[in-house]
């Protein structure tokens, strides 16, 4: 049983797993910290929605590395782009500043060479330009679409001879 005087906090993820974490780790989660502070009596268990157990595993990995001064060794390479996005959303929900910066940088690195079409899908964004508006802004920034390493746009690929 967790109590506010013990050193461990119990966190229950979306998929029902209970993690007992050090108070210091819980402190890096501003959302959790706010819940602890608002409920000044003992809390048995804090539910963390939108966070799955595989997210918690990675969070604990990161925490252990950063305590040992090795936060640079933390890698999200094994996650695909969508898994990385989910993880980022979980960390954002928990309001963990440092890990948030690490993950947004990782996402930026992955998106750097991607096409506009890919980015729209990734962010769940609809194209709200009229065809004329899009043509104009596309033309203005045409140089940014050029380069062997840049992913070509889907609709433009068809137009290539």
């Amino acid at each position, binding site marked *: 049983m967790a109590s506010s005087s013990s050193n461990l906090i119990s966190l229950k993820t*979306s998929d029902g797993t209970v993690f007992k974490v050090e108070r210091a780790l819980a402190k890096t989660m*501003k*959302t959790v910290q*706010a*819940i602890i502070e*608002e409920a000044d009596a003992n809390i048995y268990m804090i*539910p963390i*929605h*939108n966070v799955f157990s595989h997210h918690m595993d990675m969070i604990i990995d990161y925490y252990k590395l950063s305590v040992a001064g090795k936060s640079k060794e933390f890698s999200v390479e094994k996650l695909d782009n969508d898994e990385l*996005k*989910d993880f*980022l*959303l979980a960390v*954002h*929900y928990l*309001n963990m500043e440092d890990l*948030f*910066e690490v993950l*947004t*940088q990782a*996402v*930026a690195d992955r*998106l*750097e*060479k991607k096409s*506009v079409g890919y*980015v*729209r899908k990734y*962010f*769940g*964004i*609809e*194209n*709200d*330009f009229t065809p004329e*508006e*899009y043509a104009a*802004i*596309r033309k203005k*920034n*045409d*140089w*940014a*679409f050029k*380069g062997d390493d*840049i992913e070509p746009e889907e609709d433009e690929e068809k137009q290539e001879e």
Partner: protein
Amino acid sequence: MEFHQHCILQKRSMASTNEKVISSYIPDEISYSILSKLPLKSLKRFKCVQKSWSLLCENHHFMNMFLNRFLSYNDPTSLILLRVLENINVTCEEIFYSFSGERFENKVKLDWSSSLENHFEITGLFGQHLNGTLCLYGDYGEIVLLNPTTQTMKPLPASEAQSVELSIPDEAFGYVDLQVEYCLVHGFGYEPVINDYKVIRILIYNLQSSAQSDADWLSDTNFNPIWEIYSLRSNSWRKLHVNMPYTWECTDGAQVYMDGVCHWFCRSYRNVGPCLVSFYLRNEEFLVTLIPSDIDNCFDFDVQPSWINLAVLNEYIALISYHKETTTFHISILSEFGMKESWTKLLIVGPLSCVQCPIKVGTKGEIFFIRKDAELVWLDLSTQMIAEVGYKEREARITEIIVYKESILPN
């Protein structure tokens, strides 16, 4: 995040408890944080994603986030070398100072050997810097490589082309004298692969004829301006067979080196407008990037040439200009060499009514200038704060200043 936000998210996830996948929607807070970490080229491309993203450059919150990150790269701070003429009692004494430290708090009066002082008479502190080594040059082609820390110095040898002094018989009119009138150093760079320092310069010849002579024939001989490159390893000069835009403004600040490429800017060159020239040391090829006037129109004012410096900001080449009428500094960066469309106006600082005269841009983008109260100060681009170096032109006059970076490579 506040507690009530936590409740909202709870509700949202409860609505989709049967779905494993979290909603694809990414809130602005997250997307801006991601976007602010992208290189400029990607950012420009993603302007086409949606309308709100096309207006990001006008979004103060986003630009602050972007600039904070962009300008907070870790680089060793600049070192300043100052040559001043101080009035001590009745006499005028020339003194050299060095300023170092995060906030230039270490001020040291330098003691040069007399041989070094002699060289400064010839070359001045007029030059460029690279890895803690200064390349100083004088008006008549003397070039010296100096390491201020060790006070070691190496004068560069003259080149064959430099010592040319010919009397050419002119068929019709007697003799025509040809000699080098100007030696203009355009670049000081380093080639990491072969661990060699290079100096690039152009020799401009002067023709003096003893009589009225139409020396048209000279224009297509090889006495056109000649480009030369010096290699420290071979300690010799070699002609370059290139036809690049050159400039008369060869001062520290008008040229910059980054990553195996020497860059300099030309205000105007023949019919080409203001441009940046990028010379690749490895294959000795060059690119010219025009500077469009909607990026920086300071070149339009030809009443008095405006102050311009090149700098390296977060691994981009930056053009920093001072607009006197508005007392503002304009900072633009180039994403791709050779592409004039890839210039981006990064920010405008000012109006700064306290600016008396701008001097140099440091290695971290700090802008040094003399303030109206005669203090030497610097503007930090990331905080936009002005701080004092700790030198005032009181009974003294700063004759020369050079700002450089400490060596990060073994010399």
